[in-house]
């Protein structure tokens, strides 16, 4: 049994200024197993995996790899040793080809340092074929979808004959079909004896694909259990110290006046003829596969993008398409899809990020009111239980989920009339996730109009009063209380896709 273990972490400790991210952590990965690593936002999962991949140097403790204590010098060294980390945020070079990306930093060259293009292509092709990817080695990575880019990263596992592959929240931006494909790939790796670490906040996935589960909490291992011998409640209790009722709380359906109406909004090549409205107290869900054009639509309404055609009505009267500033001043808030690119200024702390869209509210005569900023920061730090060492800790140092919470904070703090949430729970742990669902219900009951974009069907069905299904840039179906169901949603989206493919 012992020699089954391919990699063993022994008593690793890692401190950052103000936080003990890992505290005496030990665990092991066996050949041919999928080992889940779960825990709240900021529990230390990514940090632990970065230590394995040579991105962080632990303060103490060691890594025993294939029975030998090993020092991993850096990500490339890790890859060449056969340890591959597939990041929470993908990290490919969009301008380079697939083949060049697979071997990034380890390109085959001849004596004179000239790239051996043919060898590079041949090896990359082999790796892609082994995975059954539908694209070739010459494609520029920037043109690929998120799922395909992920496949490029996974192809490195083939290319470097990895023994250990670590997935850090791999399904955060995948559609269900793409997720199935990914799981197929993972099972393939597993069958070949690769040891796999799987980090996710989606419990159904954990119970679907993993063999063992290790729970981290505040940097400490709470325990390791066989997936087959445990259940959701037990794991949740290990993670957050209590169980969760898995019910969605929906806001009471008491609707007021119409807040926003969109009429025939179109943007050539992105979306066409989109019409809908949302009322005070109402939660409108926008369901669709990744790439259906939902984000484009809301970004256009908010004013970050321009439309070709269409009308907007705010509280009953027609308005010109606003600029983001005007939208915010009217009382619109948009929690964008990508927290790092669109949501946060990473070098700033939580305090400055939170006040950024509302500088006028947080100032008098253009002078920033720091006291007010701090009060707001503290209010949301505790309301959303955000883990940070202080108001000025750069948000780049926070875990992914805690960053997402600051994006929420910066949009909630100015009491908007309409809040648009684009994938609000992406990367958020189960405890906070249900807190956010409750928050959505509360906001609606306070009279806000809410639009929720989500690719997670249970979420969109659970929080919304009405759901619009979007596919390929058009609204293809609308559902209300009576006919809102998973089957109908899937039907609407896939039926339409079939039609489009046939056309």
């Amino acid at each position, binding site marked *: 049994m012992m020699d089954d273990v391919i990699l063993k972490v022994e008593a690793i400790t890692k401190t950052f200024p103000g936080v003990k991210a890992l505290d005496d952590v030990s665990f092991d990965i066996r050949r041919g197993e999928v080992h889940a690593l779960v825990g709240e936002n900021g529990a230390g999962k990514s940090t632990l995996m970065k230590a394995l991949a040579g991105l962080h*140097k632990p303060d103490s403790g060691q890594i025993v790899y294939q029975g030998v204590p090993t020092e991993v010098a850096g990500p490339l060294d890790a890859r060449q040793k056969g340890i591959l980390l597939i990041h929470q945020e993908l990290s490919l070079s969009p301008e380079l080809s697939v083949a060049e990306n697979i071997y990034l930093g380890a390109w085959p060259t001849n004596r004179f340092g000239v790239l051996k293009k043919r060898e590079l292509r041949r090896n990359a092709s082999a790796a892609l074929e082994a995975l059954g990817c539908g694209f070739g080695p010459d494609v520029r990575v920037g043109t690929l979808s998120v799922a395909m880019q992920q496949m490029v990263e996974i192809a490195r596992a083939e290319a470097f004959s990895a023994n250990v592959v670590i997935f850090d929240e791999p399904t955060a931006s995948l559609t269900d079909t793409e997720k199935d494909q990914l799981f197929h790939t993972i099972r393939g790796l597993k069958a070949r004896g690769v040891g796999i670490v799987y980090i996710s906040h989606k419990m159904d996935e954990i119970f679907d694909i993993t063999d063992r589960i290790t729970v981290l909490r505040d940097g400490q291992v709470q325990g390791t259990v066989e997936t087959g011998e445990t259940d959701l409640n037990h794991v949740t209790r290990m993670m957050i110290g209590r169980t969760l009722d898995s019910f969605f709380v929906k806001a009471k359906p008491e609707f007021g006046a119409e807040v926003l109406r969109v009429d025939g909004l179109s943007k050539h090549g992105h979306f066409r003829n989109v019409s809908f409205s949302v009322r005070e107290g109402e939660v409108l869900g926008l369901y669709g596969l990744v790439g259906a054009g939902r984000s484009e639509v809301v970004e256009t309404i*908010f004013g*970050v993008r321009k439309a070709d055609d269409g009308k907007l009505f705010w509280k009953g009267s027609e308005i010109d398409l606003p*600029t*983001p*500033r005007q*939208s*915010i*001043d009217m009382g619109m808030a*948009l929690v*964008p899809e990508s927290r790092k*690119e*669109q*949501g*946060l*200024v*990473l*070098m*700033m702390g939580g305090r*400055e990020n939170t*006040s*950024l*869209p509302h*500088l*006028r509210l947080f*100032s008098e005569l*253009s*002078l*920033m009111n720091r006291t007010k900023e701090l009060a707001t920061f503290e209010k949301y730090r505790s309301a959303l239980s955000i883990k940070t060492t202080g108001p000025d800790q750069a948000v780049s140092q926070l875990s992914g989920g805690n960053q997402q919470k600051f994006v929420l904070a*910066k949009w909630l703090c100015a009491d908007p009339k309409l809040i648009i949430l684009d994938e609000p729970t992406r990367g958020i742990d189960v405890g906070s996730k249900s807190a956010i669902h409750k928050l959505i219900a509360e906001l609606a009951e306070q009279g806000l109009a809410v639009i929720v974009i989500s690719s997670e069907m249970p979420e969109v069905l659970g929080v919304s009063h009405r759901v619009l299904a979007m596919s390929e840039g058009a609204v293809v179906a609308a559902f209300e209380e009576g006919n809102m169901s998973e089957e109908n949603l899937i039907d609407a989206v896939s039926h339409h896709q079939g039609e489009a493919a046939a056309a």
Partner: protein
Amino acid sequence: MGQTINGLLRRHGLLLAFLVFLGGVAVNADAFLTLGNILDVLRQVSITGMMALGVTFVVLTGRLDLSVGSMLTLLTVIVVDQHNVAGPFLAIVMTLLAGLALGAFNGLLVGFVGLNSLIVTLAMLSFLQGLVLFYSGGSNVNIANAQETWFKVFGRGDFLGLPVPVIVFLMGAVIAGFVLQFTTFGRRIYGVGGNETASIFSGIDARWTVFWAYVVSGLTTGVAAIIMGSRVMGAQNTIGQGYELTVLAGVILGGTSLLGGSGSIWRTVIGISMLGFIQNGLLLLGFAYYVQWLVTWAVIIIAVWIDLGAKRGRIFA
């Protein structure tokens, strides 16, 4: 204890190296640490420093301003020439307005047209140099009544034992630092420089923010030109040549990131002063003036390198 010294070295290695250099110069050149020399250096620094204050705004937005060298020349020529024509008061007003206008022009091209700032301000650098010759007809201008005019106070005056230009520079630094740290404009500058997309999603108009940063840079260069004109009591057609690099060097040496979003005024004040003392020290040690250039850039490369090395914990990439 060992650890704290190590940490201190890493965090303030540059400052320590600078102090060692100062000590070295002081031992070898008696004149170096005299009050007269120090005030001289500060007087010198007040011109580049004044310009660097505005350039810091631009750099914080993640852009460059290389036009300030020729802008200084042009504005100095203007202030000196107009002093003879319109008198000191109007000359000062005109110079400041011209500075604002030139900054606004840069800001328009970079902020609103969206052209690359390196290219725009490099083009401006050479365009303005041409304009100088056009304006002056190629001859140098001098202030006619140099002894009588109250205009001389800006470059040559003293107040409470401190040179007036130094006082102007320090006041400028306090105001600029205050604006960046405590006003909404400052916050927008850091926001746009740190993450332009996220700032736009936060309702900040990046175009106006960049525009105003260039306007500030034009204004501070205008103030620097007034000091310069008053100090020299004249203007050659090349008086500001190379200043754009000294200014940028001071900003970088202070540790303000060229990528935008991180840095500050006090860093610029330290950086530009260090540079002033290094250049003065080299002169006092008897090196030819062009050695300054070699050393300046060597110092900057090493400074940036130390900083990067400390951040990533490795010397090489």
